Every structure is written in structure tokens, then in C-alpha cells.
């Protein structure tokens, strides 16, 4: 295991930002850490890199304890923080050189790897630009290049595609996939489910707790046969009527479709067409579908809330 985190706890006053998180990520594996705003994703990352000391628990990066042997652990660690954290008054090249030099990359290596990385992230030709003058997506790419300059075996990315256009998002994932092929272990924090699906494993974080973790397939399997897709007009009315059905637990809107989470599919499939038609709602489609991660996540959040009350 390249990343081992056991039972991490971190509180800020009364706020339990991270509350008993354990993660294990192996080489070639991408772990998606998903959670709403304030769930504790960034705090978890900061515990993993040792920017915060944990109240409880331990972190090992490539076998080195982050608390007792931070330098060894960090020589294996690349980190792209959520917030832009390079020097905006230094050029692209100067940032890359600086972070390479302080990590002990020799100047010969630096010249070669620097050029390679800038090509890799698509910043060739921008070497002399002040990094503060780059676009949001380019800043993230430079951040990634700086995080990779010392060829780390562990890469932590905190919302790397936040505020980045869809094409750049694609680029980013292509880069991550190539790194995985080279044997890097990656953790990606993201609020986007379509990104989480690309990970080998996903952990759902809410209020500092990992609600569950597993591969996207394992997670969606838990709701197998319990999600119905409904396409009907008018949609708002259709949603209200569906929620009145005793077997429907939840109804989420996805574009022009509704996803109904049901206790069992048979009842609603039988009852709903009649109920909706009687109310003047025109149903185009009603059928069981494969659940997506978002369905699973919402179900888990509601369960967790119910358990709290």
C-alpha cells in the first residue's frame, strides 16, 4: 500500500472536520474522495500530507510515517491543493525550477523533466509567463507539473478540475490515467460523480465520516433494481405524485428525467402508470435502470441523516 491512513481524527474547536477516516490506496489505483462542501475532503488531504497534525490516527506514505519521518514520506508525495498555491509573481519555468530544486532534483534532471512535464500538461510555450497571469485551467496544469517534478509515487489532487472547462477536465483525466499506468497511487477529491466513476475505488465522505467505500460497481450494485427512470410531463406534478407512492423513497431530477428510488420495483411499476394518468400526467417512459453513483450517494446521505436523528 502506498497510502495508508488509519482512523484519522481532526477537530477545529467543536467542528469534527475528520472523524475516523481510514483509507488504503495501492499503486496504479485511483481513489475518489467524494463529498459535499465542508465534508472534510480538504482536511483529510492536509492530514495525509502532514500539513495538519492529526488528533488521532496515523498516516503512512510509501511506508514512512508522516509524523516521525516527514521528509522521507514527502519525497514520495505530490500534492495539488484546492487553492492555487504556486508563486504568482514567478514565471511558469521559475515555479517549476523552484519546486524541483527544493526537492533535490539536480539541474540536469530538472531541465529535462521540466520540459517533459510542460509538454505533458500542455504548457509548452508558456515558460516565461508569470503564473499569476495564467488561466484557471492552466494554473491547475502548472500545479500538477510542479507536483510531479520529483516523480512522486503518491499523488493527491484536491478538486483538480474545479473551475476548469470540460475539455481541460478530459485532458486532466488522460494525464491521471497515464500516471496510473506508471504505477502511481492517486487520490482525487471531487464533488463531481462523473469523475468519481473513473476511479478504481470511491469513498463517500460526509461530516468527516466515510459513509462507505468500494469500486463504483460495488457501490451501485447496492441499489440494483431499486431505481426507476420516469420521463413524464408535467415533471413537477409527476414528482409529487411519485413521492406519494408508499414504496418510493426519493425522487431526483436529472435533466428531463426523474430517478425514483424505491424499496422494491414491482409495486410502483404496477401502480404509478395508473395514478399518473388519472392525474393528467403524460408518461413517456417508466422502467428500472442501472443506478448511478449519485443515486447511491444520496441514498447513503439520507440513511446517515436518519441514523443521526
Amino acid at each position, binding site marked *: 500500500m502506498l497510502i495508508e491512513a488509519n482512523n484519522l481524527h481532526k477537530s477545529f474547536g467543536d467542528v469534527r472536520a475528520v472523524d475516523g477516516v481510514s483509507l488504503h490506496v495501492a499503486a496504479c489505483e485511483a481513489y475518489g474522495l467524494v463529498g459535499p462542501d465542508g465534508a472534510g475532503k480538504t482536511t483529510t488531504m492536509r492530514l495525509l500530507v502532514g500539513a495538519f497534525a492529526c488528533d488521532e490516527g496515523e498516516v503512512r506514505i510509501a511506508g514512512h510515517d508522516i509524523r516521525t519521518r516527514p521528509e522521507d514520506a514527502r519525497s514520495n508525495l505530490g500534492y495539488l491543493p484546492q487553492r492555487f*498555491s504556486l508563486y504568482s509573481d514567478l514565471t511558469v519555468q521559475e515555479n517549476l525550477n523552484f519546486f524541483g530544486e527544493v526537492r533535490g532534483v539536480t539541474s540536469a534532471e530538472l531541465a529535462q523533466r521540466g520540459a517533459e512535464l510542460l509538454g505533458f500538461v500542455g504548457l509548452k510555450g508558456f515558460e516565461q509567463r508569470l503564473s499569476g497571469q495564467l488561466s484557471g485551467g492552466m494554473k491547475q496544469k502548472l500545479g500538477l507539473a510542479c507536483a510531479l517534478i520529483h516523480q512522486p509515487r503518491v499523488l493527491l489532487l484536491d478538486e483538480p478540475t474545479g473551475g476548469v472547462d470540460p475539455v481541460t477536465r478530459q485532458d486532466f483525466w488522460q494525464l491521471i490515467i497515464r500516471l496510473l499506468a506508471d504505477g502511481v497511487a492517486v487520490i482525487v477529491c471531487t464533488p463531481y460523480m462523473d469523475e468519481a466513476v473513473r476511479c478504481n475505488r470511491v469513498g463517500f465522505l460526509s461530516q468527516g465520516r466515510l459513509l462507505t467505500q468500494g469500486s463504483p460497481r460495488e457501490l451501485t450494485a447496492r441499489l440494483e433494481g431499486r431505481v426507476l427512470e420516469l420521463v413524464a410531463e408535467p415533471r413537477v406534478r409527476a414528482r409529487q405524485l411519485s413521492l406519494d407512492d408508499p414504496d418510493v423513497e426519493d425522487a431526483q431530477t436529472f435533466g428531463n428525467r426523474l430517478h425514483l428510488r424505491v424499496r422494491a420495483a414491482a409495486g410502483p411499476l404496477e401502480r404509478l402508470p395508473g395514478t399518473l394518468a388519472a392525474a393528467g400526467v403524460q408518461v413517456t417512459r417508466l422502467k428500472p435502470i442501472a443506478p448511478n453513483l449519485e443515486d447511491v450517494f444520496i441514498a447513503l446521505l439520507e440513511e446517515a441523516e436518519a441514523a443521526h436523528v
Partner: protein
Amino acid sequence: MRLLALIRKEFIQIIRDPRTLALTFAMPVIQLFLLGYAATNDVRNIALAVFDQDRSPASRELLDAYRAADYFRIDFDVDSEIEIRQLIDSGAARAGMVIPPDYSEQIAAGHTARVAFVIDGSDPTLAGTALSAATLIGQAQSTDIAVERLSRQGQLAAMDPAIEVRTQVWYNPDLVSAYYMIPALIGMILQFLTTILTSTAIVRERERGTIEQLIITPIRSWELMIGKLAPYVIVAFIDTIEILIAGILIFGVPINGSLPLLLLLSGLFLVSTLGIGLLISTISNTQQEAMLTSIFTMLPSIFLSGFFFPLAAMPQFLQWISYAIPLRYFLIVVRGIVLKGVGASALLPEIIALSVFAFIVMGVAAKRFHKRLD
């Protein structure tokens, strides 16, 4: 080499920030001008209005004596006491002299002639100077007259004054304030610049989020600390030399002591001020906070170090507080070396005090300085 990379990065940032650069290298000279010229206690050319009712050779002789000393400038020759009052009220004249109509008669008769001298007391420094200057000039003139009288009576040479008090000022014989202020200015500027620049430079990393990337590099806390301080030590030394050169060229301040000793002890003083900057950085979250806190720590340093006001004239408890201010010791050092040309042995108590400060402040700051976010 990590440390070198840090220092190089810091210098690039200094150069790319024109406002800070201007603050760093222009401020010392501007301060020097302000304090060298404006904060001077030297009073010269006090505007004097004269109402000479006698208009005799004797009264002209008296006026010449006043003219000769450059304390006074006879700007107004008026014809009534009321005019003198008006001139002083309007601020056009700061002093007035009234010579009685019988001035020359009284002197010729061997009596004491009374000359009235009025001073505008609204500015105490100026009034004090005018008062003592007027008295001294008057006394000198009356001595001359007395000697003349006696010689006329054939008692020449027998009448040397019985006692003569001769005052002599050492080290700064012309009592030029600039000589006193400029060396002190080195101390003040060094402290001001190093605390502000180092504290903001460190807090800037936190404010802009760059600390998050620095934290996960293998840079050790002490390397980060040295990497942040070293550039500003160099800047501070450049400033010291800048002030000295400007002081010599513009104000003609004589450097009587050893320059290497001065630079060495400036370095010792800098350890304390950099430590203060470092401490401020550990309690500030924004550059603005760091800047304000730095300015706040400057105030007691300026007022309780003997920079403007002599310590001996202060209430006892303020004098006690002043022992806790490193600038106090450094001012003694810098004035001692520049004005008196003293060596290290005469400054031993100050050197010990500065060393103790350097050790304590830097020690506490280094202990508090962590390469972490929490």
C-alpha cells in the same frame, strides 16, 4: 541546494514587487531627509524686529553684535512697540528688541542701560534658544563696554574677569542635530524594515496559500526560516551603507569610529529585529495584520529608546521599560561609534545586552515557527 533556491526565489519576488522595493531602498533616504532637516533642534535665523529709539553709534554697535551671531536676523526696523507686537502676533517676527532713547547717554554716564527683549514663547524650543542667545549676546556686549570703560579710566589689564567659565562641547562641537539623528536613524530604519519585511514575507506565503506547497517539500523549518531572513539581512546591510553614505555626503556626518565594528554590531542588532519580525509572522494571518503589528512595535522603540527624547529626562518607570527595548542599546552603540569613535570595549554592556536579546527573541521565534498549517 534547497536554501539557495529559497533565497533566490525570495530575491526574485523582492525585485518583482516594485512597491516593496521602493519602500526598501527609497524610505531610508526619505527618512534621512525628513529627520535630518525637519526634526532638527538647531534654531538659526530667528526673525527679529527692532525698535531703536536711540539711533546712535552705541545702539548700532549693539545691533551689530546681534547680527554677527547667526541666531538672529534683523528683519524689521520699526518705529513703535505696537508694531513689534503686531509682527510677533502675525508670526512674521519671533522676537522683538526695544532700545530706549537714552541708551547711549546711560552708557556714556557709566550707568546700566536697559534694553527690552520680547520673545514669542509659543514654540518652547525656539524661545529657549532665543532667550539664551539674546542673554549671552547682551552679556558679551556689556562686558566689552565695561572693559572699554575701565581702560578709559587707565585700569587696563588689571581688570580681567575674576572667573571665566568656558564651556566646551565634545564630539559634536557645533551641536548639529543631524549628527545626532543620522546614526540613530540607522537603528530605526534597520528595525522598521526588517520587522515589516520579514513578517510580511512569511505571512504572504500563508495568505496566498503558497505555504501549502512549501509544507510538503522536504524543506526543514530552519531552512525556511533562514531562507526567509537571509535576503532581508542583505537588504538591511545595503540600507545601512546607503544611510551612512547619504549621511556623509548630504549632512557631512563624520564617521569617527570603526566601520567594520559598526556593521558587525548592526548584524547583532538585526538578529533581534528579525526575530521580532518572525514572532509577528507567527501571530498574524494577513500581511496587513503583520504590517500593523510591526508599526505598533515600532512606537515604543522610537519613543523609549532615546531616539528623540533623552532617556534621562523620562519618568523612572519608562526608563525601566526602556531596558527591554533593543534599539535603546543599539542607539548607544551606533552613536558611540559614529560620533565618539569608541571601540568595542566601551560598548561592552550594550553588546552583552544585545546578545542576550538576540538569543531570547530568536530562540522564542524559532520555537514558535512551524512548517504546518495548524
